[in-house]
C-alpha cells in the first residue's frame, strides 16, 4: 500500500518534471528549434579557424552554423563587427570589457595570449563562416 504510493509519487515526479521542462521549452520557443544550416564551407585558410573555434572552447558559449551553444550565436557577426572589434570581443578587451560580466572577461583573458597566426585564423573563420547569415 505505502510502497505503491511511494512508487506512484516517484513516477508522478518524473512525469511532471519532464512535462514541465517540455512545456517551458515550447512556451519559451514558440517556433520549433532548428539547427541553423551549416555555414558555407569555410575557405581553406579558415579550416584551422574552425578547429580552433572548437578546441579553444569558443563553442562552450557560442554557436556557428548550429554547432555549439545556441545561446550566443555568432552567425552573421562579421556583418556587425569589423576585424578589430571581433578581436576585442575574443579577448574581452576595449569596448567588449565594459559590456561583459567580470567572470566572462576573466575567462576570455587566455585568448589574448593566442599566437598571432591562430588569432588570424580564428578571425578569418569568423569573417568567412560567421558572416554567412547577417
Amino acid at each position, binding site marked *: 500500500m505505502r510502497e*505503491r504510493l511511494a512508487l506512484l509519487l516517484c513516477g508522478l515526479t518524473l512525469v511532471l518534471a*519532464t512535462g514541465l521542462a517540455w512545456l517551458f521549452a515550447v512556451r519559451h520557443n514558440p517556433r520549433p528549434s532548428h539547427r541553423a544550416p551549416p555555414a558555407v564551407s569555410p575557405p581553406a585558410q579558415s579550416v584551422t579557424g574552425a578547429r580552433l573555434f572548437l578546441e579553444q572552447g569558443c563553442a562552450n558559449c557560442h554557436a556557428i552554423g548550429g554547432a555549439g551553444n545556441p545561446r550566443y550565436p555568432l552567425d552573421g557577426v562579421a556583418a556587425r563587427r569589423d576585424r578589430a572589434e571581433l578581436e576585442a570581443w575574443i579577448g574581452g578587451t576595449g569596448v567588449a570589457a565594459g559590456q561583459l560580466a567580470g567572470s566572462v572577461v576573466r575567462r576570455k583573458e587566455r585568448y589574448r595570449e593566442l599566437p598571432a597566426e591562430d588569432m588570424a585564423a580564428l578571425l578569418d573563420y569568423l569573417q568567412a563562416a560567421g558572416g554567412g547569415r547577417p
Partner: protein
Amino acid sequence: MNTATPSPRADRVPGSSRVGRAAAWIALYLALALAPLAMLLAGPLPAGGGRRWDFALALGFGGLGVLGLQFALTARFRRATAPFGIDIIYYFHRYAALVGVALVGAHYALLRLWFPETLGTANPLEAPGHLTAARVSLVLFFLLTVSSLARKQLRLEYDTWRIAHAVMAVSAMVLAIGHVLAVGHYTAAAWRGSVWTVYSALWILVAGYIRIVRPWSLLRQPYRVVSVAPERGRSWTLTVAPVRGAALAFRPGQFAWLSLGCSPFRAREHPFSFSGSAADRTQLRFTIKELGDFTRTLRDVAPGSVSYVDGPHGVFTPDCFPAAPGFVFLTGGVGLAPVMSMLRTLADRGDRRPLQLIHGSRAWDEVLFREELSALQSRLALGVVHVLQEPPPGWDGPVGVLSPDVIAPLIASRAATDVFFVCGPKPMTASVQRTLRSQGVSLRRVQTEHFDMA
C-alpha cells in the same frame, strides 16, 4: 486507546486527518521539487536557445529540485514523516533520488547528443570551471547511486557508506548549485537571483540541521547501557536507561536510531525496533540479531556505556488502529522484536482484544522469547502458532515457512476484520503480503516495516 498511555508528540492522529496531513505534505513535496521549473515558467526571461536546448536545460533544473529535496526527506523531520512512517520515506528517497539522477543524467545526455560542441573538452585544466563542477557533480551522483543500490555487493561497511554518502551528497549538490549559478542565464534574470540563493541555501541548511542541530539535541538526552542480555536465536536485548528524567515516549512497534558508545556527531547510528513495553518510561529495550558488522560487536558493549536514541519513528503500531477488533502478527526471526513491544504494551494496558501470532523460526531452541510468549498468553487473549523449518522429533505444529498453506487456515476467520502486522526477512514479508491479498485482506489493514534501508 487507554488514556494512561504516553502519547508521543508526532503521528498522534489516526484516520482521516492523517490522510489530510499526508496529502498536504505530498503537495508541499511536489511544490518544492518542482519549484525550479516553476521559476522558469514564471517568466519573463532572456530569449530562449531553441526548444531542444531549453528542454535539456530545464531537465537539469528539474533534477536539481528533486535531488535538493532528498536532504529534507532524510532529515527525519518527525512531523513531516509521521503520516507515512519514516521507513517508507527512506524507501521513497531511494527511488526519488533515482528520478533526480535520471533527470540530471538526461540533461547531460541530451546536451551531449544535440549540442556536442558546447561541452568541449573534459580536461579540467582547459574546461570552464562551471562545466567541470557539473561533470564532477554528475560523477558523484552516479557514485552515490551505485554505492547505495549495491552497498552489500560492493561489501561497503554501513558506517563508512553512510559517511561517504553524506559527504558525496553535499559535495555533489554544492557543485551542481555552483554550476547553475555560474551559468546564470536564467537564474540571474529579474527577481530570480535572490530566490535562487535562498532556495539553494535551504538545502544546505537542511544538511547542516541533519549533521549539527539534530546530533546536538540528542547530546542533551544521553542514555546509559543497563545490560546486554543474550536471547534465543543469536539475538541480544540491549537495555538503556535515561541519565536523567523519563525515557522518551514511543508507540509499541516503533523504532529509533541508536548511537552506542560514541557521540551522535559521528553518525555511527543504527535503526532498531523497541522491544519493551511502551508503558515503561524508566528504560528502553531493543532486541537485535547478530547480522552485520555492528550487531556482531553488540555483545562487547559494557554496561554504563553512553548511548543516544533518535526516535521514536515509524507507523508500524497498533495505536494507529484504535478501533481494530483484533490483530494478527506474522513474523519471522528477529522480526518478532517490534511485535514483542506491542504484546508487552497491550498486556500492560490490559487490552483484551483477540490477538493471533504466527511466528517462523529455524529451530525450537532458536524461538525468540519462547518462554515469555507462553507467559503472555495468560495476560492477553493471545493465540501463538510457531512454524519451524527444522522441527524437533515429535513436533506436531506447522513445518516450513509462513507459506499460504500454513497461514490461510489460521487467518480465515479474521481476514475480513483484523489488522495484520507483518515483519521479517524481505522474501517472507513479500510472500505473506501476497497470501493475505489472496485471502481477501484489504491492503489498508496490512502493515509492514522496511528495515533494509541500504
